[in-house]
């Protein structure tokens, strides 16, 4: 079966090389995020998503309340952290900023024209806005590509000592599971885009069509982070990290956690905290919109949420 798959993939690549097709995708505007009708809700109502916009003049109590900058992954939207927000509203006294990555949550064309540095900009904007308003307990939670973006911010010292208290990485991507991504420079221009297998719900919150240009950006980002980890760097002073990594993840290879463990150290040189999770999901904290969710998946999500909130409360 595996050999057949490999042969089939090679055959598809060969046919596409010959035909050199790179058509634009057929987008259903009424049901897909890719179209020009469905946009991320944070674009219309930023005050419902960003603490810096929601609270004009924070009180001293608010300034000392933990704020989590929760950021989604490649091709996703703020939807990815809705469940955490709902869970936190019921179980903790914290503030959450759900940041929409640059180039995301809009049309396919806007996504196609964005770079990974564009994706990163809103994270820094919200971080700086919170700092300017005097928040003292800022934290970060990222899923998948957001983790790579945060690692770059740390490596380049854009987030320095005492900037963040806790960083939570959910299924960080450093090594992609689909190794054909490493060939995107070769096959990308011929394919034009890659189609995901979204559920009907996911179609409203995740791009169905991934432009090859953005996949190149993703590869450039992950490759940079991999090299940074290879050379090694430390977390800023007074910043703690917890990594949660699914072991059977078909998007972010679990070996990404090994690279993090080897390449990133706490400020004092000690090893960072990594929890490997026996799951087949990519981004174990997002269950809404998926088909075939098991009780085990629900338990894992709750365990991770509780663990994050417990760490924040300490």
């Amino acid at each position, binding site marked *: 079966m595996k050999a057949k798959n490999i042969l089939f993939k090679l055959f598809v690549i060969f046919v596409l090389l010959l035909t050199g097709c790179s058509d634009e995708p057929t987008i259903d505007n009424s049901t897909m995020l890719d179209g020009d009708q469905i946009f991320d809700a944070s674009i219309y109502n930023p005050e419902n998503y960003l603490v810096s916009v929601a609270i004009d003049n924070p009180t001293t109590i608010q300034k000392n309340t933990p704020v989590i900058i929760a950021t989604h992954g490649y091709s996703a939207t703020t939807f990815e952290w809705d469940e955490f927000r709902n869970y936190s509203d019921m179980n903790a006294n914290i503030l959450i900023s759900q940041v929409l990555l640059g180039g995301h949550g809009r049309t396919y064309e806007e996504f196609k024209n964005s770079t990974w540095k564009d994706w990163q900009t809103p994270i820094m904007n919200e971080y700086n806005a919170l700092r300017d308003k005097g928040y003292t307990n800022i934290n970060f939670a990222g899923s998948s590509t957001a983790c790579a973006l945060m690692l770059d911010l740390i490596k380049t010292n854009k987030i320095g000592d005492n900037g963040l208290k806790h960083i939570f990485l959910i299924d960080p991507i450093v*090594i992609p*599971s689909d*190794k054909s991504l490493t060939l995107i420079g070769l096959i990308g221009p011929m394919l034009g885009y890659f189609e995901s297998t979204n559920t009907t719900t996911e179609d409203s919150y995740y791009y169905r069509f991934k432009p090859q240009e953005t996949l190149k950006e993703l590869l450039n980002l992950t490759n940079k982070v991999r090299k940074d980890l290879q050379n090694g760097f430390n977390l800023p002073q007074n910043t703690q990290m917890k990594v949660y990594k699914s072991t059977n*993840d*078909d998007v972010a*290879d679990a070996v990404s956690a090994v690279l993090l463990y080897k390449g990133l150290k706490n400020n004092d040189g000690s090893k960072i905290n990594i929890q490997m999770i*026996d799951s087949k999901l990519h981004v174990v904290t997002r269950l809404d919109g998926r088909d075939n969710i098991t009780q085990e998946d629900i338990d894992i999500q709750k365990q991770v949420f509780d663990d994050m909130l417990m760490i924040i409360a300490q």
Partner: protein
Amino acid sequence: MKKKKNDLQKKLVFTLFFLASFLCIEAQTSESKKDWVKDLKIGVRMQKAQKLYWENGLAIDFTSPKIANNRIHLGFSYVTTRLGSAMGTNAIKQDNFLFNLGYYFRHQKKLQPFIRANTGYFYADYESDIFDDLSNTAVLLSIDTGVSYEFNTPITINLSAGYNLNTGTGVSGPGTLYPLFYQLSVFYTLFKKS
């Protein structure tokens, strides 16, 4: 830990098997050598995986007039990040033990295009019990093609590009086993039958 110990044992057995087979060839009498060996070369190999590590090591290449009239090359190589990207860095330490069988065109000329099939064993050392559940070994299966150039001195250079058919998928296989790789090998001819 037990799993990693077994992996190491497998790795050692595999290495010994290949080294033994080449030592056997080398240990033959000069008469049988003349019968069987056309060229015996030993050299260094540098390998780069597309968007990943440098893996360097040793390679042996052998041809025989009794095997497809010297057109078929048999070889063994060991390349590792320990002698490449992992030297003094945090790159994963990984080893490739590879047996190859190549068909060389224009085998009597200096410049010989070739195509090779390779198989062997891959091992990655994750260095912590936390990652014991992750796959860190694989059977290697790859093809590569390139050119070989034999100088007037006993030096031969091989350049090739190859494709691993059995890469990691996130669900199975080691994550740092990537599809596309490039190789440069520089051989010294130990024995040559004119």
